[in-house]
């Protein structure tokens, strides 16, 4: 029981407090590439703190506008809670893999609600883009996880990484998953929905103060959840061969490795972000569609058992 509480505490800490730090690190990495000192790695905490302390200004009376950030926050949180932290999966049940996809989509729906609830062509355009992007990338994510599920004969996110066997299709599935996670996370060149210089952060354009802070925080948590998924799929299958994950120390060690890999991946993403320009929505969708078709092929290969 004690072990559970410790893991639960660590998990909560990771989900709530780690994302801003990761963002801070990412900003620092980008700054270094750009020959700058950059902000302190805790800058994102300061930003969130100041936003959350600020009284928002409401451009509309609609309830949807006010609750959208909370929906987004809740869905990001829910997504994160479905993932394995070491051996500990906060919320686990068979078929949670569908729930994961569902809550991620929920997040985007919250963005769309936010975008369409005000009469502003920037937020509308942003919501539009979010919708198009999500519609084109969710299938890729689904296919990627589907390949894993097929391979592991499991429909639970906690179960999949522990049961997979290495086949050629699995390696392709990792590539697919990496791509889907990257795009869904809204990293450059796929930060199309929140493009600052084009449509002024899209759906978030009209938000301010506390509500904006919630949204920003939720987005960071969502990124964490996506990356954590990838990291878990990467780390757990390897770790389970080295150490017994189900023990307390084994779980802690796995968690530590997960964290280290997460930091590394986040830094790599920062480097990719720093060396790319943003794509146009039609270019991104075309690319996603192509990847999706490739994904179907992979699914076929996996179904054949290779």
């Amino acid at each position: 029981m004690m072990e559970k509480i410790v893991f639960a505490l660590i998990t909560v800490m990771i989900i709530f407090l780690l994302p801003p730090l990761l963002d801070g690190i990412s900003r620092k990495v980008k700054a270094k590439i750009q020959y700058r000192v950059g902000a302190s790695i805790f800058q994102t905490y300061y930003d969130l703190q100041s936003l959350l302390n600020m009284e928002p200004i409401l451009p509309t009376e609609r309830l949807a506008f006010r609750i959208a950030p909370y929906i987004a926050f809740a869905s990001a949180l829910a997504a994160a809670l479905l993932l394995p932290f070491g051996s500990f999966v906060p919320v686990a049940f068979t078929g949670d893999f569908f729930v994961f996809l569902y809550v991620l989509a929920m997040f985007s729906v919250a963005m769309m609600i936010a975008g369409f609830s005000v009469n502003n062509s920037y937020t509308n355009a942003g919501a539009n883009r979010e919708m198009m992007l999500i519609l084109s990338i969710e299938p890729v994510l689904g296919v990627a996880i589907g390949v894993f599920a097929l391979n592991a004969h499991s429909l639970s996110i906690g179960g999949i990484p522990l049961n997979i066997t290495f086949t050629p299709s699995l390696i392709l599935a990792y590539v697919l998953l990496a791509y889907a996670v990257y795009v869904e996370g809204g990293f450059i060149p796929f930060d199309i929905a929140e493009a600052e210089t084009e449509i002024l952060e899209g759906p978030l354009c009209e938000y301010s103060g506390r509500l904006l802070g919630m949204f920003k925080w939720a987005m960071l948590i969502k990124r964490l959840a996506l990356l954590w998924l990838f990291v878990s799929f990467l780390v757990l299958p390897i770790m389970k061969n080295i150490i017994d994950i189900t023990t307390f120390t084994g779980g802690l060690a796995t968690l530590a490795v997960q964290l280290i890999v997460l930091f590394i991946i986040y830094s790599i993403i920062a480097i990719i972000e720093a060396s790319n320009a943003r794509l146009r929505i039609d270019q991104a969708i075309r690319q996603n569609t192509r990847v999706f078709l490739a994904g179907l092929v992979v699914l076929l290969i996996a179904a054949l058992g290779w």
Partner: protein
Amino acid sequence: MSAKPKLRSVWVFHLNTGACNGCDIEILDILTPFYDAERLGVKLVGSPRHAHAMLVTGPLTRQCYYGAKKAIKAMPPKPRIIVVIGTCACSGGIFYNGYPIYRRSESGREGCEYPRRGGIIELIEDLRDEGEYVGPVIYIPGCPPRPEEILYGIAQLLGLVEKKLEGEHYTEEVGFELPEAPINERIRLTLREKLRHVVGYFDRDKILEDFMELVKKAEESEKPKEELKKLIDEYNAKIRDVRISFCMRLLENEYWRVRDALSAGKEFVYWV
């Protein structure tokens, strides 16, 4: 310098009210590697709704007035900091009383008031009259201000540095000095004006001072003309700058010409 910052995160929105672009580019410039305002927690955002502070540039044209007012009202009610960047925004700058520039009717358009009125303050006062809250205002004059100047202003806002400037008022009591140059004042002014056309206003004083030193030394000797020539040769060998040497030679010729003319009683009104 080690003071703890009052604010750790300042998101700024950039509001141009008809500026010439100079200040606007300098604002972007503080984000670039050499200045990197992100260190101080500054982030440029695209929507006034996200902003803690408004960076205002420009003399506030009438066409911009409505948009600027809307933008400030769109900011969250607190803290609504206004950072006024550039001479135009501080007081209207060189454009201050042109016909398309907005001014409150109380401000007049051709008065002799000081501090000089104009710029964004006209809008802020209008907003305050309407009962809108507007937070602290900090003025950063300059045309355009250097990026360091803007950083300094922002650092002041964050409580990292203290202000250095204070209003000054002098009366006759400070005393009056009428410096005596080693050469006749009329000749000095003539040469000074001549130099303006040769090396420009900026370098002339230094060159003229050096020249007068040499003249002073030369005049003490028996044959001033030859002595001055020798001194200038030495000086030129030391300074190794074509332009300064050129000026020295020119000054030498001019000096004797003007001096001879003056002592011959010819009138010289070179300077005005």
